[in-house]
C-alpha cells in the first residue's frame, strides 16, 4: 500500500450506496495496481550502484560444519563480500554462534555456526555486482560437512540425542479438567495426520538494504512486523536499534510471516560490510527453503459420549512437528490444547500435547496454527459419533454447541459472543447446489477437471459439515498494543500507523474508520516504517482490533478538538453534535455545517493507543488459565463430487456461516473468506511439502500443488452473523483465519460422506478416496 496510495488517490465510494465509512465496501487501493501488474513489489526495488546478495544453503538436514573456506568465492572477480557466522557478533562464550534469534525463543542462527539443523539452512552469503556472479560465488564456497543422522520422525525426537542445546522438546502442555474416570455410553477413537502446508506466497522473499552514514542500515522489505524485525535485526548485528530503520514496501499479501530474520540480517550485514546497497531476491526453490511452514501434526483422540451424543469426556494426545527451530511452536501448541474439543462443551477433558524439534523444515505462523490441526481431528470424531448413533451431523453439533458464557476446557469462560448454534442454523437453511441430474444442460465439471477422465457413473456426491474456532490477538499474557496518529489538515486526513496491510485490508479499514468518525472523505494512509510508533505484527487478526481501535481513538480525539469550538459557540456540549454525510449537525437541527467548513485552515492531530485486556499463561500442570482475549467461530458446509474409482475429488461448493461481530467492510470480508477457503481446500486435497530424510522433494510450484481456479469451489456466504463483541473496537472480530481452519475438516467430512471411507489424513490423496470394488 506504500506506493499504491498514488493510484486511486481516495478510495472509490461504495458502488451501491455511494457512501463511505464503516459497513460499506470501498475497494482496496492496491487491488487495481496488483490486478494490472503495475504494483511495485519488493523485488522491483532499485538503488544506484547496488550489489546482489546470494545465500549458500545446507544440502544436508543435519550435519556438523567442519570447515568453511570462502577463498574460492572471494577470488571471483565482482565479488565484494562473503560473510559467515564468524562475521556476526560472537556468542556468550566468545565463539561464533550465528547470532541466534527468534520471535519467542532465540534459537535460530542467522548463519549456521558449527552445525546445520535443516535442509536449506543458510551457511554463508555473498554480495557481488551481478546476481549470477553472486550465485556462482556462493556455490563455490567450500564447506566440509560431517553428515549426521537426521531426526525426521517427530515421535523419535523424544529419545533422540538433542539437536540443539535447548533440547528437542519445545513444549509439553497437559490439560486436565473434570473426572478422569468418567465414561460414556459410546466411545470413538481416531488417529489423525496433518501434512506440511507451505504458505507459498505469491511474491517470493525480496529486499534491499542501504547502508547509512551513521554506521546503521536501512532495510526495505515486506516485513509484517517492522518494529519486532528492526529490534531483532539490530540485536543480531550487535548495533543499537536506532541505527536500523525498516521501511515496509511491496507487501504481496501474506498468510504467514514474511522475510525471515536470517534474510534480513544477512542482507543488512552485506550492506554494512560493503558500504553499498545490496539487493537480494530468492528464487522460488529458495523461497520454499527459507520460510516456515504449517506444523505437521499427529493427533490421537478418544471421545466418550452419552446415548444422545452429548460429549462426556475427551482424551487426546497431540504432537506437533516444530522442525529445526522453536519459532511460534509454543503458541501453536497452546491454541491446539485450548481448542482441542472445539466449539463444544465437555465437562471432562484430558489432553497431552507436545511440540518437538526435528531436522525437518521449521514450522511457524500460518493462519490458525494449532487450531487447524485439532479442528480436523475433533470434527472427524464428531462425525464418527453421529454415524454410530445414527444422528444427523448438524444435530450432533447442535447438541454439543458452546454458547456465550460456557467454559473452554482451560477454565476460561467464553465471554465474547459464541453463536455456534446460530451458525449451524444458518447453514441448515442454505440451499444446496443443483445435482447434475436436475440440470443436465449445465456443463457439469467432473472430478478430474475439464478433459479429465471423470465418468458420471462413478461419481458420488458427499456433503460434510464442520465448525471451528480460533483465538484473536496474542495469547498467554503477551502484551498487545498498537499506536496510531490521525492528522487532519484542511480537507484531508492522514493516518500514521505502523500496522502492515498484509492483504487483510487494514489500510482500507483505517480509511473507513476515519471517514466514519470525522466525516472527511479524503484519507491518506502513510507508508509504514519503523520510525513510527510500534503497532506490532500482522497476525492473529490483531490489526482490525488493536490498530483499528487505536485509529478510532485518535480520530475521536481529533473529532473532539474539531467540534469543541463549534459547540462552545452554540453553548452546547460536544456530545450533542453528530457528523453525518460530511456535515455537522446539532441534536436540535439548528446547526448544519459542512465538515470542510469546520476544518478550514485548521491543523488537528492526536495520537492514541489501544491495549486489550491482559491474558495469563496456561498452567503448565493443568492447562488452566484465561489465555485468550477473544475467539471467532465459523461453520461450513462442503459439497464434494468424488470419482470413487480414481479417487479424484472436486469440491463443488462451500457454504460459510461466520461470526464476524460486526461487518466493517462486507466485500472485504467475503474476499477474505474466499481466500481462506481456497487455502483450506488446498490443504484438504493438494498441498503437502513432502520430505524424504528431512529433504523437501517437491519444493517448486510444479511439485507443490496449489489450488487453481478449477480446484477452488464456489464459495457462498450463508450468513455473516453480527453479534457485537462488546470489548472489541467496533464489536468486530477478525475474519481471515477461521475459514482456513474449518475448510479442511468440512471437505474431509464431505469426502467421508461420499465414499464411506474413514479419511484420517490431510491432504486427502486419491488412494484415500478410492473405493475398492
Amino acid at each position, binding site marked *: 500500500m506504500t506506493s499504491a496510495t498514488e493510484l486511486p488517490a481516495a478510495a472509490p465510494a461504495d458502488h451501491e450506496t455511494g457512501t463511505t465509512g464503516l459497513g460499506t465496501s470501498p475497494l482496496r487501493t492496491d487491488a487495481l495496481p496488483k490486478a494490472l501488474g503495475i504494483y511495485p513489489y519488493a523485488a522491483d526495488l532499485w538503488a544506484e550502484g547496488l550489489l546482489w546478495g546470494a545465500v549458500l544453503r545446507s544440502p544436508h538436514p543435519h550435519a556438523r560444519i567442519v570447515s568453511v573456506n570462502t577463498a574460492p568465492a572471494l577470488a571471483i572477480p565482482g565479488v565484494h563480500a562473503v560473510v559467515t557466522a564468524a562475521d556476526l557478533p560472537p556468542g556468550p562464550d566468545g565463539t561464533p554462534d550465528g547470532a541466534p534469534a527468534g520471535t519467542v525463543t532465540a534459537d535460530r542462527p542467522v548463519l549456521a555456526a558449527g552445525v546445520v539443523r535443516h535442509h536449506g539452512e543458510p551457511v554463508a552469503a555473498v554480495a557481488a555486482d551481478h546476481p549470477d556472479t553472486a550465485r556462482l560465488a556462493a556455490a563455490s564456497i567450500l564447506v566440509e560437512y560431517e553428515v549426521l543422522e537426521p531426526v525426521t520422525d517427530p515421535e523419535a525426537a523424544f529419545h533422540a540425542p538433542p539437536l540443539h542445546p535447548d533440547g528437542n522438546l519445545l513444549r509439553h502442555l497437559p490439560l486436565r479438567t473434570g473426572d478422569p474416570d468418567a465414561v460414556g455410553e459410546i466411545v470413538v477413537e481416531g488417529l489423525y495426520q496433518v501434512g506440511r502446508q507451505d504458505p507459498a506466497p505469491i511474491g517470493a522473499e525480496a529486499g534491499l538494504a542501504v547502508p547509512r552514514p551513521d554506521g546503521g542500515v536501512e532495510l526495505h522489505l515486506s516485513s509484517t512486523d517492522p518494529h519486532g524485525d528492526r529490534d531483532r535485526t539490530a540485536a543480531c548485528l550487535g548495533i543499537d536499534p536506532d541505527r536500523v530503520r525498516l521501511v515496509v514496501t511491496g507487501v504481496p499479501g501474506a498468510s504467514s510471516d514474511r522475510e525471515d530474520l536470517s534474510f534480513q540480517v544477512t542482507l543488512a550485514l552485506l550492506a554494512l560490510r560493503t558500504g553499498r546497497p545490496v539487493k537480494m531476491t530468492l528464487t522460488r526453490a529458495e523461497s520454499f527453503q527459507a520460510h516456515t511452514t504449517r506444523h505437521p501434526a499427529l493427533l490421537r483422540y478418544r471421545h466418550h459420549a452419552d446415548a444422545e451424543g452429548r460429549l462426556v469426556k475427551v482424551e487426546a494426545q497431540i504432537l506437533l512437528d516444530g522442525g529445526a527451530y522453536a519459532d511460534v511452536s509454543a503458541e501453536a501448541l497452546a491454541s491446539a490444547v485450548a481448542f482441542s474439543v472445539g466449539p463444544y462443551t465437555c465437562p471432562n477433558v484430558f489432553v497431552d500435547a507436545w511440540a518437538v524439534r526435528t531436522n525437518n523444515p521449521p514450522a511457524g505462523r500460518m493462519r490458525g496454527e494449532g487450531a487447524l490441526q485439532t479442528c480436523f481431528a475433533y470434527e472427524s470424531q464428531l462425525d464418527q459419533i453421529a454415524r454410530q448413533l445414527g444422528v444427523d451431523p448438524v444435530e450432533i453439533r447442535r447438541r454439543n454447541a458452546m454458547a456465550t458464557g460456557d467454559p473452554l476446557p482451560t477454565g476460561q469462560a467464553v465471554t465474547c459472543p459464541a453463536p455456534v448454534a446460530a451458525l449451524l442454523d444458518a447453514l441448515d437453511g442454505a440451499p444446496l447446489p443443483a445435482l447434475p441430474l436436475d440440470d443436465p444442460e449445465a456443463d457439469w465439471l467432473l472430478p478430474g477437471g475439464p478433459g479429465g477422465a471423470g465418468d458420471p457413473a462413478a461419481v458420488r456426491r458427499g456433503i460434510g459439515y464442520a465448525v471451528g474456532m480460533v483465538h484473536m490477538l496474542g495469547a498467554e499474557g503477551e502484551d498487545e498494543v498498537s499506536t496510531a496518529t490521525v492528522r487532519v489538515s484542511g480537507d484531508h486526513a492522514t493516518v500514521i500507523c505502523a500496522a502492515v496491510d498484509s492483504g487483510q485490508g487494514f489500510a482500507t479499514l483505517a480509511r473507513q474508520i476515519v471517514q466514519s468518525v470525522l466525516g472527511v472523505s479524503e484519507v491518506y494512509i502513510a507508508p509504514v516504517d519503523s520510525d513510527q510508533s510500534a503497532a506490532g505484527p500482522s497476525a492473529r487478526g490483531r490489526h482490525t482490533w488493536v490498530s483499528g481501535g487505536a485509529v478510532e481513538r485518535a480520530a475521536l480525539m481529533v473529532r473532539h478538538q474539531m467540534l469543541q469550538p463549534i459547540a462552545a459557540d452554540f453553548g452546547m456540549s460536544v456530545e450533542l453534535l453528530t457528523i453525518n454525510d460530511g456535515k455537522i449537525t446539532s441534536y436540535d437541527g439548528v446547526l448544519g455545517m459542512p465538515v470542510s467548513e469546520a476544518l478550514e485552515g485548521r491543523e488537528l492531530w492526536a495520537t492514541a493507543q489501544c491495549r486489550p485486556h491482559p491474558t495469563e499463561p496456561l498452567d503448565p500442570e493443568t492447562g488452566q488459565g484465561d489465555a485468550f482475549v477473544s475467539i471467532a467461530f465459523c461453520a461450513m458446509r462442503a459439497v464434494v463430487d468424488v470419482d470413487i474409482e480414481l*479417487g*479424484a475429488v472436486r469440491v463443488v461448493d462451500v457454504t460459510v456461516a461466520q461470526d464476524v461481530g460486526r461487518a466493517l467492510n462486507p466485500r472485504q470480508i467475503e474476499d477474505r473468506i474466499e481466500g481462506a477457503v481456497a487455502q483450506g481446500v488446498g490443504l484438504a486435497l493438494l498441498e503437502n511439502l513432502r520430505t524424504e530424510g528431512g529433504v523437501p522433494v517437491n519444493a517448486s510450484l510444479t511439485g507443490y500443488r496449489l*489450488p487453481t481456479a*478449477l480446484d477452488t469451489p464456489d464459495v457462498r456466504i450463508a450468513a455473516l452473523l453480527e453479534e457485537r463483541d462488546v470489548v472489541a473496537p467496533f464489536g468486530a472480530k477478525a475474519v481471515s483465519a477461521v475459514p482456513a481452519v474449518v475448510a479442511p475438516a468440512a471437505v474431509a467430512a464431505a469426502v467421508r460422506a461420499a465414499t464411506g471411507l474413514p479419511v484420517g489424513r490431510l491432504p486427502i*490423496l486419491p488412494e484415500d478416496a478410492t473405493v475398492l470394488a
Partner: protein
Amino acid sequence: MEHGGNLVNRTIMLPASVDEAVEALAATPGAVPVAGATDLMEAVNAGRLRPAALIGLGRITELRGWRYEDGGTAVLGAGLTHARMDRPDFAALIPALADAARTAGPPQVRNVGTLGGNIATAAPAGDTLPVLAALEATATLARAGAVRDVPVSHLLTGLDPLRPGELLTWVRVPLLHAPQVFLKSSGRSGPARAAASVALVLDPARRGVRCAVGAVAPVPLRPLEAESWVAGCIDWDARGAEGAVLIDPAALVAFGEYVAGACVPEGGAHGEGAGADAARLRRTVAVLARRALGRALK
C-alpha cells in the same frame, strides 16, 4: 541473423526457415534448438543446462501448421502449439491429440509449448506422447542435406535417437476417421502432471485397436496383446447401427485389467510401500483403459 552475446557471451540465432535452422545447427556444435522453452528455460534457470548457443524456431512459420499427404496422413509441424492443437478444426482431425493438448498444462504453457518440444523433452508424463505412440506416428528429422523418418517411439526409447545436427521438423500421423480417446488421471481438477494416462484409437479399416499408457514408465507403453485380443471382442460390423452394443461390458473390464497387467509390473520387490503403490497404479490404469475403450465404442 546473429545477435551479439549477452553477459555470458551466449549466441541466439533466429532462422526463418528449416534450411537456415539446420545450417545454423551444423555450423554451431552445441547449439540447442528452442521453441516454446517451457521445459528448456526451467532447466536453464535451475542451472542444469547452460547452452552454448540457442536456435530459436519461433520464426519458422511453416512448422507452426500442418498439411495433408496421400489423403490419409496429416503432417504436423513440430512448432504446433498445444493451444493450436486444441482448436476445433484440429480436434476434428485427431481428437486424442487435441484432448491431450487441452490437458497439458495451464493456458500460459499451452500457448507456447509445442508438439516437437514435447517429443524432444520426452518427459515420462508428456501428454501428447502416448497419443503419438498409439497412432504409430513417425518423425521427420532434418539435417544439412539429408532427411530421414523415424518412428516417434524409436526416438523416445533411444532405439534410434536424434543425431547431432538433426532437427525435428514434422510428425506424420495417420488420419483414421474413427473415435479416439485420451484420458489422464492426476488427482486434481486443475492442470497437473499425469499420474497415469491412456490413449486409445480405433482403426476400423484394419479392425484394430491401438492403445498406449503414459506416465507409468519412462516412455509410453503399448499393451500389444491386449490390443489384439480386444479387437477380436468388438462387433465391428455393428458400428454405426442405432443402439448397437459393440462390446460385452465384461470384456471392457477385462481389457482394463489386461492393459494394467501389461504396463504396470507387480510391485513388492522394493518393499511393501512399493507394492501398494504399484497396486494403486494398476487400478488407475485399469480404470482409465476401461473407460477409454468404453467411450471410443459408445
